[in-house]
């Protein structure tokens, strides 16, 4: 079956009814030579002087154009090469830079890690030291009377002579209380208060006017002396001290009232803050 194609050339068109891509490819290769050559040749045949013109000047010019095009394309492709080469070189140097930076950062990181380890060790040392200091502080606060204290001990109630028991007029003086407290310290008391006034390092027991004062607080009779210490031995130990002997004398000879009992739990308040201040004394030596 023969038919005319779009370009007026005879070609088998078996696929006319079933168009496919093969048809297109066949047509492309079948019309590889421009139809115009044949048309122009046919036209020349009809002319009497229809021979080819010589030389082909225009054709030569076109061929020169072809040469120029090819060379321009080749040069362009070649000149694009060095640019890519340069870019690749830049990328490589960038990679090297980054790798150097990376290793530097890794080193720095290692240094910092060891620093962190050191500091953690130091922090642990400081922490345990702090614990020690806190323990020590707590104990010192207790001893100095800066905090309330609680524990077993003795409760001693003393009072002046009862009315009319004797004619000697036994009255408790500040010295008597000082002797009593001294005896208790000697017997092993750890914290002492008189009428709820805790005795600290700076506390004085003295007479002011008609009353006895402790920590600048006037006391009223009867005087209740509470002492924290070993409840089993404190009483007996006190009896053997000179203070204890002196008080037995007072009780016996002057009719002073003296009652002593052990207590399972005593609570002693803290020393007032103004009795804990020091102005002139400063510590000597380092912290323990």
């Amino acid at each position, binding site marked *: 079956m023969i038919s005319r194609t779009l370009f007026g050339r005879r070609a088998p068109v078996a696929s006319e009814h079933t168009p496919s891509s093969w048809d297109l490819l066949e047509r492309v290769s079948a019309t*590889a030579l421009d139809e115009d050559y044949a048309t122009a040749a046919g036209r020349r045949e009809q002319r009497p002087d229809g021979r080819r013109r010589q030389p*082909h000047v225009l054709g030569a010019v076109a061929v020169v154009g072809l040469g120029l095009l090819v060379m321009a394309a080749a040069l362009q492709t070649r000149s694009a090469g060095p640019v890519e080469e340069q870019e690749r070189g830049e990328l490589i140097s960038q990679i090297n830079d980054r790798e150097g930076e990376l290793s530097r950062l890794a080193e720095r990181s290692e240094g910092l890690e060891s620093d962190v380890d050191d500091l953690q060790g130091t922090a642990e040392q400081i922490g345990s030291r702090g614990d020690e200091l806190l323990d020590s502080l707590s104990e010192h606060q207790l001893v100095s009377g800066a905090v309330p204290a609680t524990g077993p001990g003795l409760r001693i109630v003393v009072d002046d002579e009862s009315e009319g028991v004797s004619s000697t007029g036994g009255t408790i003086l500040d010295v008597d209380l000082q002797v009593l407290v001294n005896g208790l310290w000697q017997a092993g008391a750890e914290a002492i208060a008189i009428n709820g006034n805790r005795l600290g390092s700076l506390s004085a027991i003295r007479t002011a006017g008609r009353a006895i004062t402790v920590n600048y607080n006037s006391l009223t009779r009867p005087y209740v002396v509470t002492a924290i210490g070993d409840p089993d031995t404190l009483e007996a130990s006190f009896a053997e001290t000179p203070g204890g002997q002196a008080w037995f004398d007072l009780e016996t000879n002057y009719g002073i009232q003296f009652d002593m009992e052990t207590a399972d739990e005593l609570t002693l308040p803290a020393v007032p803050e103004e009795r804990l201040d020091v102005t002139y004394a400063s510590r000597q030596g380092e912290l323990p």
Partner: protein
Amino acid sequence: MIAVLGLVIGLVGGLIIEPEVPDAMRPYLPIAVVAALDASFGALRAYLDDIFDDKVFVVSFLSNVIIAALIVYLGDKLGVGNQLSTGVVVVLGIRIFSNVAAIRRHIFHA
């Protein structure tokens, strides 16, 4: 002979003056070269067929180059520049192959 001479002149001239291709036209140069090659092989075949014509060659040469570049330019604008370039190269390649095959048959009579 004059064609070979022209080709040599063109190549040497291109090498000497190193034509600077504008940046805007740079992507279309390779496809234009392929189109020019197609026109040139067609001309050679026509010459061997003894139906060569100057005017037809020049016109087909110019139109091939311009149309190929235009198609790729259009494809670039539409976002299918690569696909259209491939299509143009395939079509021109087939034409070059069949023309060269015809030339071969002419020269070697095979």
